[in-house]
C-alpha cells in the first residue's frame, strides 16, 4: 500500500432533496493506493455522496480537490477524464451485444474492435478477471457481468475506482476473486472507495473506513482494529431515544402466524424468502429490522396477498389459512396493509384522495360500493374525516394524491387503514422520507392501535423508529428472519450484526472456507 499522497478531498459536501438533507457537510479524504470503506445504513447518504464525486449529481455546497487542485465535476464524462471510474450496483449493459461491443460503447474514443478485444484480454488477465470479449452479455451470469463493468473502468486506467455494494450480487466464491483483484489494484496505487454494509468484508480488505449516518459523517476508523460489533454500533448509532410507548398489556392470542414460509422471488433482483416463522400477537408491535433489499418487499407482498404462496397453511390470519386467498379476502377478515412505496403502490398518483379511499376499501367498506356502483359521496365524506383526524394538509379540497407532500400523503394512507380499526396491521417503512412531525404522529398511532388490542407488524430500516415503537424485534437478512426477541433483550450491536448477515445459516457456511 503506497499511502500518504492525498488523491481526493471532499470538503463540506451538502445535498438536499426536498425536505431531507441527504448529505450534511460531509468531509471525505482518500489517499493513493488505499481501499477506503464507506459504511452506513440505507438512506445514510452514501450513494448521494459517491454520485456527487462521480459527477452524476450536482452538490448543493462544498468543494472537491483532486490531486491537490480544486475541481468541479460537471458530469460522469468529466469524472472519467479526471481518472474516476465507478461500478454501479445495477449494471447498464446491452444484453444483445457482445462484451467488447458493450465496452466500446463506453469508451470516449473509438478504438478498432480487434484492438479492443486484445486490450480486454490483456487487462482482464492481468487482474484475474478473465473475460471472453466475444461472448454475448445475455448469456453471462451476474458475476461475469460485473467483471465487464470493472474491466470497462480499468481500461481507462483510473486513479480512483468507486464500487457501490459490489458483493451484493456475487456468490461468496466470486466475491473472493473480486477481493484479490481489488487488493492488487490498490497495490498498484489505485484508490478504491468501497461502499458496503457487510462488515466482514470491510474488515478484511479495507484500510480505512468512513461511517455515515443520517447524511452526516459520524466517524472514521481503521476497520481492522475494530470489532464487527463496534463497527455495527457506529453504523446504526448508539444513542437510545426515550421511548414513550405505554405499558404493553399481556400479549393476547396470535392473530398472524407464518409457518415455514418459503417463496421464490419473481424477477432477477428479487430475494427468495426461506423458511420464515413468525407469530404476531394481539396487543403487540413486532418490528422487522433489516437493510433494504433483503426480502422486506417480498415478505410484505406475501403477507398482504398481492402475491399468493403455494401452500394455504403457511400464512394464518385470524384463525384462517389465507396463503391462497386474495388481498381483499384478507382485508375482509380484518387485516390492513400499508406498502413502502406511497405513490403508485399505496396510492394512485393521478386520482383524487377520495378515490384513493376507494382503492383499498372497496371490498371491505359496504358504504363505498353498492351493487357494483361507486358512492362518491361516501368516499368524499371518508376523505374529509381522514384529513381532519390525521392532520392531512392540502392546498385545496380533495387534491390528486401526487400533489401532497410525502409526509401528508403517508398520514393519509396510514389514516385510511387505521380508520377501519383493523385487527392486524402490516406496515412497510412507515415513516420513510417523512418529516419529523408526521413521523411522530404515525408512530404514536401505531402504538395506540396495538394498545387497543390489535396486532401490528412494522417492517423498517430505521432502528431509532424500531426502538420507539416495537415490543419485539426480529431481523431479516437475505430472505431469512431471525427469531423475534423482546426489545429489551436486543441491543443495537446485536441488531447490527444480524443485519450485516452474521445470523444467516448460509453466510456462516460460506465464511468457513477461509
Amino acid at each position, binding site marked *: 500500500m503506497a499511502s500518504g499522497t492525498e488523491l481526493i478531498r471532499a470538503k463540506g459536501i451538502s445535498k438536499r432533496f426536498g425536505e431531507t438533507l441527504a448529505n450534511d457537510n460531509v468531509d471525505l479524504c482518500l489517499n493513493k493506493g488505499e481501499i477506503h470503506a464507506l459504511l452506513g445504513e440505507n438512506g445514510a447518504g452514501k450513494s448521494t455522496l459517491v454520485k456527487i464525486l462521480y459527477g452524476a449529481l450536482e452538490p448543493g455546497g462544498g468543494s472537491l480537490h483532486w490531486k491537490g487542485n480544486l*475541481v*468541479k*465535476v*460537471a458530469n460522469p464524462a*468529466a469524472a472519467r477524464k479526471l481518472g474516476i471510474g465507478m461500478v454501479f450496483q445495477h449494471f447498464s449493459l446491452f444484453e444483445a451485444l457482445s462484451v467488447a461491443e458493450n465496452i466500446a460503447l463506453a469508451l470516449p474514443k473509438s478504438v478498432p474492435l480487434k484492438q479492443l478485444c486484445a486490450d480486454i484480454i490483456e487487462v482482464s488477465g492481468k487482474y484475474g478477471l478473465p473475460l471472453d470479449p466475444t461472448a454475448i452479455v445475455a448469456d453471462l451470469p451476474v458475476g461475469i457481468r460485473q467483471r465487464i463493468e470493472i474491466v470497462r473502468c480499468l481500461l481507462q486506467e483510473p486513479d480512483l475506482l468507486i464500487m457501490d455494494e459490489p458483493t451484493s450480487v456475487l456468490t461468496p466464491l466470486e466475491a473472493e476473486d473480486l477481493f484479490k483483484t481489488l487488493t492488487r489494484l490498490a497495490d498498484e496505487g489505485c484508490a478504491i472507495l468501497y461502499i458496503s454494509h457487510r462488515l466482514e468484508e470491510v474488515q478484511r480488505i479495507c484500510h480505512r473506513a468512513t461511517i455515515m449516518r443520517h447524511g452526516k459523517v459520524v466517524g472514521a476508523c481503521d476497520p481492522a482494529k475494530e470489532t464487527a460489533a463496534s463497527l455495527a454500533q457506529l453504523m446504526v448509532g448508539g444513542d437510545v431515544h426515550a421511548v414513550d410507548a405505554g405499558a404493553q398489556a399481556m400479549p393476547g392470542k396470535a392473530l398472524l402466524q407464518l409457518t415455514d414460509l418459503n417463496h421464490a422471488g419473481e424477477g432477477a433482483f428479487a430475494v427468495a424468502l426461506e423458511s420464515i416463522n413468525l407469530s404476531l400477537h394481539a396487543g403487540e408491535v413486532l418490528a422487522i429490522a433489516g437493510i433494504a433489499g433483503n426480502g422486506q418487499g417480498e415478505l410484505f407482498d406475501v403477507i*398482504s396477498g*398481492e402475491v399468493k404462496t403455494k401452500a394455504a397453511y403457511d400464512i394464518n390470519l385470524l384463525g384462517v389459512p389465507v396463503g391462497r386467498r*386474495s*388481498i*381483499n379476502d384478507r*382485508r375482509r377478515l380484518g387485516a390492513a*396493509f400499508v*406498502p413502502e*412505496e406511497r405513490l*403508485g*403502490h*399505496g*396510492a*394512485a*398518483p*393521478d*386520482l383524487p384522495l377520495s*378515490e384513493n379511499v*376507494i*382503492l*383499498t376499501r*372497496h*371490498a371491505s367498506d359496504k358504504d363505498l*360500493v353498492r351493487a*357494483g*356502483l*361507486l358512492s362518491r359521496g361516501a368516499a368524499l365524506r371518508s376523505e374529509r374525516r381522514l384529513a381532519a383526524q390525521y392532520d392531512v394538509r392540502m*392546498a385545496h379540497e380533495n*387534491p*390528486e394524491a*401526487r*400533489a401532497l407532500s410525502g409526509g401528508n400523503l403517508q398520514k393519509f394512507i396510514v389514516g385510511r387503514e387505521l380508520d377501519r380499526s383493523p385487527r392486524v396491521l402490516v406496515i412497510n417503512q412507515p415513516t420513510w422520507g417523512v418529516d419529523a412531525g408526521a413521523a411522530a404522529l404515525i408512530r404514536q398511532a401505531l402504538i395506540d392501535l396495538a394498545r387497543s388490542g390489535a396486532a401490528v407488524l412494522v417492517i423498517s430500516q430505521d432502528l431509532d423508529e424500531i426502538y420507539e415503537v416495537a415490543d419485539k424485534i426480529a431481523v431479516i437478512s437475505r430472505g431469512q428472519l431471525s427469531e423475534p426477541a423482546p426489545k429489551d433483550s436486543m441491543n443495537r450491536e446485536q441488531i447490527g450484526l444480524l443485519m450485516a448477515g452474521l445470523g444467516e445459516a448460509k453466510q456462516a457456511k460460506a465464511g468457513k472456507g477461509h
Partner: protein
Amino acid sequence: MRLELEKRAETSKRMSVLSPLIAIALTGISVTLMFIALGVAPLAGLHAFFVEPLTSVWSWEELLVKAGPLVLIAVGLSVCFLSNTWNIGAEGQFTMGAIFGSVIPVLYFDFTSAWALPLMILMGALGGMVWAAIPALLRTKFNTNEILVSLMLVYVAQYLLDFLVRGPWRDPDGFNFPESRLFDAAHVLPKFGDGRLHLGIALAVVAVLLIWFLLAKSLKGFEIKVIGQAPRAGRFAGFSQNRTIWFGFLLSGAFAGIAGLSEVSGAIEQLTPVISPGYGFTAIIVAFLGRLNPIGIVFAGLLLGLSYLGGEAAQVSVGISNKMTNVFQGMLLFYVLACDILILYRLRLVRSAPAKEAS
C-alpha cells in the same frame, strides 16, 4: 432565451378540455399551408373541406352514417386505452364482425324471421370478440406485444374476407364479380330519413351511454382506470391486470364487430372485398381526440366523419386528391398526442441561459 416544460402539481382540468381544441386549430393551420402549397386558394379549400359537406340534409345524414361506426368503435377502444391495453386491430375485428354477421344473410338467406337481425348483431359482436381474444390470450399467457398481434390480425381478417367474396361466398348470380349475394330485406338494418341513415347510429348512441355509465359510476370503470394509471396500486387494490386486459379486448372487439355488421347490413347490404375506409384505424384518432371520454368521442367522431366527406367534396370542387383525408387525420393525431403534454406540463419561457460550469 428558451422554452422549458415545467411539471404541474396536478392535472390541469382546463387543459384537458383545451388541448384537443388547440390540436384542431394547429391542424387547421397546417391544412391551410398545404392548400397554399398545392396552389389552391386556402379559403376555398377550407370551405370545400369543412363547410360544403354540411350544406344539405342528405350530407348531414351521410355524416352520421360515417360517424356512427367511428364512435361505436372508439368508445370500445377508449376502455382498452384507459386500462393501458393497446388494441390497434379494431379494423380486423370490424371485418370479422362483418363476416360472422353475414353468415345468416349469405348462407341461410331463407331464414327471414324477426329473430334474424338480432341474431346477426350478436354474431357480429361474437366475430369481433373472437378476433380480439387472440391478442388478449397471447398477451396474458405469453406476454406477447398486443399492439403487433392485433395489428397483424387486421390483414389476416381482410384476406379472409377477400377469399370468401371471391370464393365460397361469391354471389352465384353475380356475373363473377367478387361480391356476396345482396342481403334479403329481412337482413338489412331499418333505415330512417331519406338518405342512408340506419339503425347503426342508434347502436352507437347506446354504446356511448353504456360506456359513460361504466366509466363514471361503476367499480369496474374505477378498476380500469386504476390498472391503466398505476398497475401496482391496482394490484394492491385487488384488481387483476389480466382480467382487465380480457375485459378491454372483448368489449372493444364486440363493439368493433357490431360496427362491422352494421356497415354491411345497414350501408352496403352485401359483402364486398373492401367494406371500410379504415374506420378501425381512424377510430383510434377519434378515441384520443375525444380524450378517451365517451362524450368527447361523439364530437371527435363527427369531426373525423366530416374529414371523409370533406376529402371527397374537395376532390370534386377544388380538384385536390381525396388522400387529403388521410393527411388531415394523420396530422390531427400527431397534434392531439403532442398537445396532451400541456395537461401535465406548462410551457415556460426562460430568459437567461444557465451559468456555464467550468471543469
